[in-house]
C-alpha cells in the first residue's frame, strides 16, 4: 500500500486505484465533477476536479494517476475561483429553469452550484433558444440544457458501441446532435436512454406520458389495469430516500391502488409465460436442428440493434415477444371477458425501468387492430412522480396484495430484471425438459455476476450446453462478431442492453454510482428467494392460462399471441440506383456515390466508366448502379463488380478490372 497526502491527511492507495479522483474520495472528499464516470473513459473536460499537486501545479484529478508521496490540495482559493467561475459560466449560458425541469433534485449542475455556494451569476445571460427534439417516443433532447460534458456521447459510444450522438460545430457553438442534426427517432438510436442516465442535467430525459395516464384514470368508463416490471420493485424506493435494492412490490401495489388503477398485475407473470415459450423454443431448436445460437428477444433496444446492424442474423432472435409484449397481448384478448368489460374500455398501463419499451409498445407487431396492446408505458421515474403528485407517503406504506391471476409470479419471473436472470429462469425450465426430471439445485450461480460477457458451459443430460450472458451492446457486438466469424459457438445467448440489465435501465431513478446496480441485483435475487415458487413451469396461473386459453405451450394460439417477427432496418438499403440497365445484364457494376466516396471523386469515376462502356459498345453486357454507401468509407472510393468490392478505386485501375471481367463474360 502506498500513501499520498490529501489536504494534509495521509491517504493509502493501491495499484487498483485508477486515478487521483477516486483516491481523494477515499479521503472522504467528494470533488465536484460532471464528466467523470467510473464506467466511461476519462475525458478531463469539465475541469471541476482540478487539484493542486505540489511541484506540478493544477491537474485534473480524474486524469492523474496516483503516485506515492504526492502532496495534493483540493481546496485552495484559486481552485475555488475556477470551480465557481465554471458553474457561473454554465448558468450564464444554459437554461436552468429548475422548478419546471424533470431532472430537478437529480441534477448535478443544480447540486454542484448549491455545494459551491454559487448565489449569483456575474456574467451576461446568453441562453440559446434551440429547438427541442421530441421526435422519439423514448427520449426528449433539450439542447438548451446541454452543458457539453460529453457523457452521453461517450455512453452511447463506449457502452453501446453505437455513437448515435456526437459533437458538432465548434467553440461556443458546439452542440451534441444526432447525425445531420436529425431527430433521435430518425437515426441509429436504439432508445436505451443510457445517455439520459449519465446526463448531469436535464438535456436528455425520458419522454413522459403521465398526463395521458391521468386522463385515462379520470375517465370512469375505463378500466385501467397496470403491470410493472421486475426491476421497478428494487429501485422505486430510491426516489423516496430508501436504500437501493429494497424490495417493495407490495408497497407498489398499494400505491398503484391509491392512485386509482383498477387492477394491479405483475409483468413477472408474463415473464414466467415468456420462459415457457422461450425455453420450449430453445429446446426445439436444439432438438430439431434450428438456427443457432438463439438470442433472447425481451430487450427492445437489443432487438432494434439486431435489425439495424445484423439483419442477416434476425432468425437467431427468439420469436418470443417480451414479457411486456406478451402481457399486452394476453391482457387485451383475455381480460375483457374475464373482467366482463367492453374491450374498448380496457386500458393497459405498464411501468418499466426502460425508455426503449416506450418505443416497443408502438411497434405495429405489438398492436391489435391499430391499438397498442400496452396503451401507455411509464418509467419508474414517472411512477415516482405520480406517487408524489398523489401525495402518497410511499416510504410509510404497508404492502398490499396483487390482483389475480396476472399478479402471481415465481422467482424465475422476478430475476428477469437483471443480467443473467432470463438465462437462469430459462435454465430452470429447459434443463428439466431435457433431463426429464425435477431440478435439484435451482440456483445457477455460474450465470450470475456483473462481468460484461460471461460464458458458461453446462452439462445438461447428454448435451454440453454452451451459453453466454451479455450486457451492454458494445459487448454484444463482440459476441455477435465472434459467432458470425466462427470464433465462438453457443446454443443460447442472453443479451440485455443496459449495464446490469433492466435494473440499470434509463427509466429507473437517476443514479451515477454503479454500486447502486449491484444493490438492485441483490434485491432481485432476494425477492426470488422470498417467493413461494422459483420455477415458471410451476406457476399455477400460467398452467391454468394454457389450459383454459392458450392451449399448448408453443402451440398455434400461443404463437399467434405470444410470438413476433422482425424487420431489416439496415441504415442504408443495399439497393443502388440504376443508371444503365439492360435485359441480359451479364456484369453488374456498382459505384458508391455516398458522401465519402463522392468527396473522393467517385462521381467522376462513374461518369468515365459510363463513357468507357458506351465508347466500347458494351451497354448490352453490363448494368451500372450508383450505390449510396458500401460502408467501406475509409477505403473509398469503392466500386463493386459482381459481388466483389474494390477499394481505393481510380478509373484506371477499375477499368482494367472491368475489361478483364468483360472479356470473360463476352467470350
Amino acid at each position, binding site marked *: 500500500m502506498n500513501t499520498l497526502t490529501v489536504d494534509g491527511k495521509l491517504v493509502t492507495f493501491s495499484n487498483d486505484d485508477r486515478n487521483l479522483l477516486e483516491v481523494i474520495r477515499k479521503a472522504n472528499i467528494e470533488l465536484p465533477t460532471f464528466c467523470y464516470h467510473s464506467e466511461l473513459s*476519462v475525458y478531463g473536460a469539465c475541469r471541476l476536479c482540478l487539484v493542486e499537486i505540489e511541484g506540478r501545479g493544477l491537474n485534473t484529478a480524474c486524469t492523474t494517476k496516483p503516485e506515492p508521496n504526492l502532496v495534493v490540495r483540493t481546496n485552495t482559493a484559486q481552485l475555488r475561483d475556477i470551480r465557481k467561475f465554471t458553474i457561473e*459560466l454554465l448558468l*450564464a449560458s444554459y437554461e436552468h429553469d429548475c422548478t419546471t425541469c424533470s431532472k430537478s433534485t437529480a441534477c448535478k449542475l443544480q447540486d454542484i452550484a448549491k455545494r459551491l455556494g454559487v448565489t449569483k451569476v*456575474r*456574467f451576461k445571460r446568453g441562453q440559446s433558444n434551440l429547438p427541442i427534439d421530441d421526435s422519439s417516443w423514448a427520449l426528449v433532447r433539450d439542447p438548451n440544457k446541454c452543458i457539453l460534458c460529453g457523457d452521453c456521447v461517450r455512453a452511447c459510444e463506449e457502452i453501446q458501441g453505437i455513437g448515435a450522438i456526437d459533437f458538432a460545430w465548434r467553440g461556443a457553438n458546439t452542440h451534441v446532435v444526432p447525425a445531420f442534426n436529425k431527430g433521435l427517432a430518425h437515426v441509429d438510436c436504439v432508445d436505451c436512454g443510457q445517455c439520459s442516465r449519465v446526463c448531469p442535467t436535464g438535456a436528455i430525459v425520458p419522454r413522459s406520458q403521465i398526463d395521458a395516464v391521468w386522463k385515462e384514470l379520470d375517465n370512469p368508463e375505463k378500466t385501467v389495469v397496470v403491470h410493472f416490471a421486475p426491476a421497478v420493485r428494487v429501485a422505486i424506493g430510491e426516489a423516496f430516500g430508501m436504500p437501493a435494492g429494497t424490495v417493495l412490490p407490495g408497497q407498489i401495489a398499494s400505491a398503484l391502488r391509491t392512485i386509482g388503477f383498477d387492477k394491479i398485475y405483475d409483468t413477472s407473470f408474463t415473464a414466467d409465460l415468456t420462459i415457457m415459450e422461450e425455453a420450449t423454443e430453445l429446446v426445439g431448436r436444439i432438438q430439431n436442428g434450428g438456427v443457432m445460437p438463439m438470442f433472447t428477444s425481451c430487450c427492445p433496444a437489443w432487438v432494434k440493434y439486431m435489425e439495424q446492424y445484423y439483419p442477416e442474423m434476425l432468425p437467431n432472435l427468439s420469436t418470443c415477444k417480451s414479457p411486456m409484449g406478451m402481457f399486452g397481448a394476453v391482457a387485451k384478448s383475455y381480460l375483457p371477458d374475464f373482467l366482463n368489460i367492453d374491450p374498448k374500455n380496457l386500458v393497459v398501463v405498464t411501468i418499466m425501468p426502460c425508455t426503449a419499451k416506450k418505443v416497443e409498445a408502438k411497434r405495429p407487431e405489438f398492436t391489435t387492430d391499430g391499438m397498442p396492446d400496452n396503451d401507455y408505458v411509464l418509467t419508474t421515474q414517472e411512477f415516482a412522480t405520480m406517487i408524489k403528485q398523489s401525495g402518497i407517503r410511499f416510504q410509510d406504506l404497508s404492502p398490499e396484495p396483487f390482483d389475480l391471476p396476472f399478479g402471481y409470479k415465481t422467482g424465475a419471473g422476478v430475476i428477469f430484471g437483471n443480467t443473467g436472470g432470463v438465462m437462469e429462469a430459462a435454465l430452470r425450465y429447459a434443463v428439466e425438459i431435457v433431463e426429464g426430471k425435477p431440478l435439484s439445485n435451482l440456483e445457477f450461480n455460474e450465470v450470475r455476476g456483473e462481468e460484461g460477457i460471461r460464458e458458461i458451459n453446462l452439462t445438461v443430460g447428454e448435451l454440453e450446453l454452451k451459453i453466454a450472458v451479455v450486457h451492454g451492446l458494445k459487448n454484444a457486438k463482440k459476441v455477435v462478431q465472434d459467432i458470425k466469424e466462427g470464433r465462438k459457438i453457443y446454443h443460447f445467448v442472453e443479451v440485455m442492453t443496459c449495464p446490469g440489465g433492466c435494473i440499470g435501465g434509463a427509466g429507473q431513478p437517476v443514479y451515477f454510482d454503479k454500486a447502486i446496480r449491484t444493490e438492485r441485483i441483490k434485491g432481485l435475487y432476494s425477492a426470488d428467494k422470498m417467493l413461494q415458487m422459483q420455477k415458471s413451469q410451476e406457476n399455477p396461473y400460467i398452467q391454468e392460462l394454457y389450459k383454459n386459453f392458450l392451449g399448448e405451450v408453443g402451440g398455434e394460439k400461443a404463437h399467434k399471441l405470444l410470438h413476433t417477427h422482425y424487420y431489416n432496418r439496415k441504415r442504408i438499403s443495399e439497393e443502388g440506383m440504376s443508371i444503365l440497365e439492360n435485359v441480359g445484364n451479364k456484369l453488374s457494376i456498382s459505384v458508391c456515390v455516398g458522401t465519402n466516396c463522392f468527396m473522393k471523386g467517385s462521381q467522376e469515376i462513374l461518369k468515365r466508366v459510363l463513357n468507357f462502356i458506351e465508347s466500347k459498345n458494351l451497354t448490352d453486357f453490363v448494368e451500372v448502379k450508383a450505390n449510396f454507401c458500401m460502408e467501406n468509407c475509409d477505403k473509398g472510393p469503392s466500386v463493386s463488380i459482381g459481388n466483389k468490392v474494390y477499394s481505393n478505386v481510380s478509373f484506371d485501375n477499375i477499368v482494367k478490372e472491368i475489361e478483364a471481367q468483360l472479356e470473360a463474360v463476352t467470350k
Partner: protein
Amino acid sequence: MIKSLSNLEALDAVKKEYAKKIALLKREIIVCAGTGCTANGSLKVYEELKKQIENAGLNLVVKLDFEEDKKDPHYVMSSGCQGFCQMGPLVTIEPDHIQYVHVKPEDVNEIVYTTLVGNKLVDRLLYKDPVTQQSYKGTSSIPFYARQQRTVLKNCGHIDPNSIFEYIGKDGYYGAYKALTEMSDEDICNNLLLSGLRGRGGGGFPTGRKWDLTRIQPGTKKYIVCNADEGDPGAFMDRSILEGNPHSVLEGMIIAAKAIGADEGYIYVRTEYPLACRRIKEAIAEAERFGLLGENIFNSGQNLKIHVMEGAGAFVCGEETALIASIEGKRGMPMPKPPFPAQSGLFGKPTCINNVETLSAVPLIIFNGPNFFKSMGTEKAAGTKTFALTGNVANTGLIEVPFGTTLREIVMNIGGGVLNDKGEVDPDAFKAVQIGGPSGGCLTKEHLDIKLDYDNLLSVGAMVGSGGLVVMNNSTCIVSVARFFMKFTQNESCGKCIICREGTKQILALLDDIQNGDATLETLDLLESLALSVKAGSLCGLGKTAPNPVLATLKYFRAEYEEHIINKRCPTKQCKALMKPEILPDKCKGCRVCVKTCPVGAISGDLKKPHVIDDKLCIKCGACAQVCRFNAIIGVA
C-alpha cells in the same frame, strides 16, 4: 538519367552536375512565386520574362537539364517565398545579386534589355529606403535582408522548390545520408540535444529530448508527424518553408524517423494552404521516385512512408493531441496528457510531433554538426528563428534572426521603422508589438531592448509562439487588439472544456462591455480574474494561453482600459460606441455639406447657422468630419 539515389556517389553526382550547370549559366532570374507575390501577379511576370528573353535572342532555359553546349543560358525560375512580401512581386537576378521589387509584367521588357542585355541596373525597380529614398541593389545591401541571418530560410527563394536536384545541389539529403548511414539513433538525439534546438511551434521543448523520449519507448511501430497546421493570424513561416523548400522538411522527417524508430509519417497541413499541399505532395512523390522515401533508404534498412493529411483549418488541431485525433479521423479535440504522444500517440503508438520549422532546421544541424547551430542565438535558445513581421511597419515579410536579437533591431532596422497613421515612418508612433499570435502577449516600448528568447519573453508575459510579430502604432486601440485576439480564440476553441469554451465567450462579452461604455471598474477585476482562471484551468494549450492578450494588455495598458471605463473615452478613437461627435458652433459656418452627407439624417441646421448632431440617430461613421472643410466636427474618427 539518375534512377535511384541510394548511395553517396549518386548524391555527389547530382551535386556536381548542379554545380556544373550553375557555373554554365549566364544568369539566374528568380521570380518569387510565394503566396504573397503570386497574389500580386508574379506568375505573369514569370511568363513575360520567358517570352521577352527569347524575343531578345537570349538563350532561355527553364530547367537545369539543358544541353551543355548551349551558349550563355538564362535560367528563369520561380521560387518559394523570398521573404520581402511587402515589396512583391520580387525578381532576383544572380550572380549580379540584384533584387527588383514591385515588378509588373510591363517592367519585364526594361529588365531584359537594360539588365540582361545591357548589364545595367533599372534604378526605378530597386528597393528604396522610405525615409532617405536611397536605392539598394539587392539582398546583400537592403537592410531588410542584410541584418537578418537567414539559415533555415537560406535556400527558400533561391532554389526551385519543385526540383529535388537543386535541393541536393545545395547539400540537401546529405544530412539524411549521414544520419542513416553513419549515426546511431542515440547519436542523432544527442546531436540534436547538443545543438540546443527547441521546438519552433510554440512550446519550445528541446527537440533532442522529445526525440529521445519517443526513441526509448518500446514497440516497433512508431510515427513521425510534421505539424504544419499553422493557424496564427498573420503567421506564414511554415507555409513559406513548405512552399519554398519542401525537401528540407522531408529530410528532417527522415532523420527524425531514424532517430525515433519510425517507419511511417504524416504531414498535417491545412487545406487552406493549397500551394503548400501541392508542393509537399510533389516533393514526396519525387523523393519516392528516387528512393529517398520508401524502403531501405540509402541501403540503410530505414523505411519511411510519408502521408499528407489535409486538415480543415481548425486552429486547435495545431495542439498535438487534437492533431492526432484529426489524423485518426476523429473530431479534433485535445485529450488530457499524460499519456504524452511519445508514449501513446497516433493510433495508440509512440509518436513524435515536430513543427515544420523545427524539422527544416534538422538537416542543417546533422550536416554541419551541432556546434554550427549552437553558435547562433543565446545560451538557452540556440539558432535562429523565423518571424512573420506584419502590422504598422515599413517592411513586412518573412524574416529570420538569431535568438537574442532585440525587438528594436527587428522593428526599427529590419522592419524599417514604425508607420504612423499617415503611412510615414515615425519612431514616435510605436505603441506595442503582439508577439506569438493569439496565444502570445504584447511588448511595449520598455521591451524594445530585451533580447528575444523563450525565457525572456515568458518573463514579461509573452511568448515566442510560432513567430507572429504584429507591430502596432499609437493609433491602435489596445482594447480592440485584445478583443480581436479573443474573438479569434473564442471562435477556435474546440468547445471541449467548459472554462475555455464559456470563459473565452464571457471575456469577449466583458471586453464588449468596456468598448460599449457599459463597464465599471468591477468589470475590469472580473475580466482579470476570469482570464486568470481560464489560463490556469483549461485543458490544452489553446485555453491556457487564450487569455494572454487580455492579461498582457491589462498589464501594460491598464490606464487605457480605465480610460474606456471611467471617462467612457477611447483615446485612439477606435471604439465607435464611445465616440461623441459634436459640431463646434464657433467653427461651423452652416454650409450644410455635412447635413447632406450624413447617411442617416442625424445632422440638422439652417444655412449659415451652426448645425447640431442628434446623438440618438448618429451611427458614428465619421462621414461628416471628413467632408467638413472647417474642422468643426470633433469626437469622431
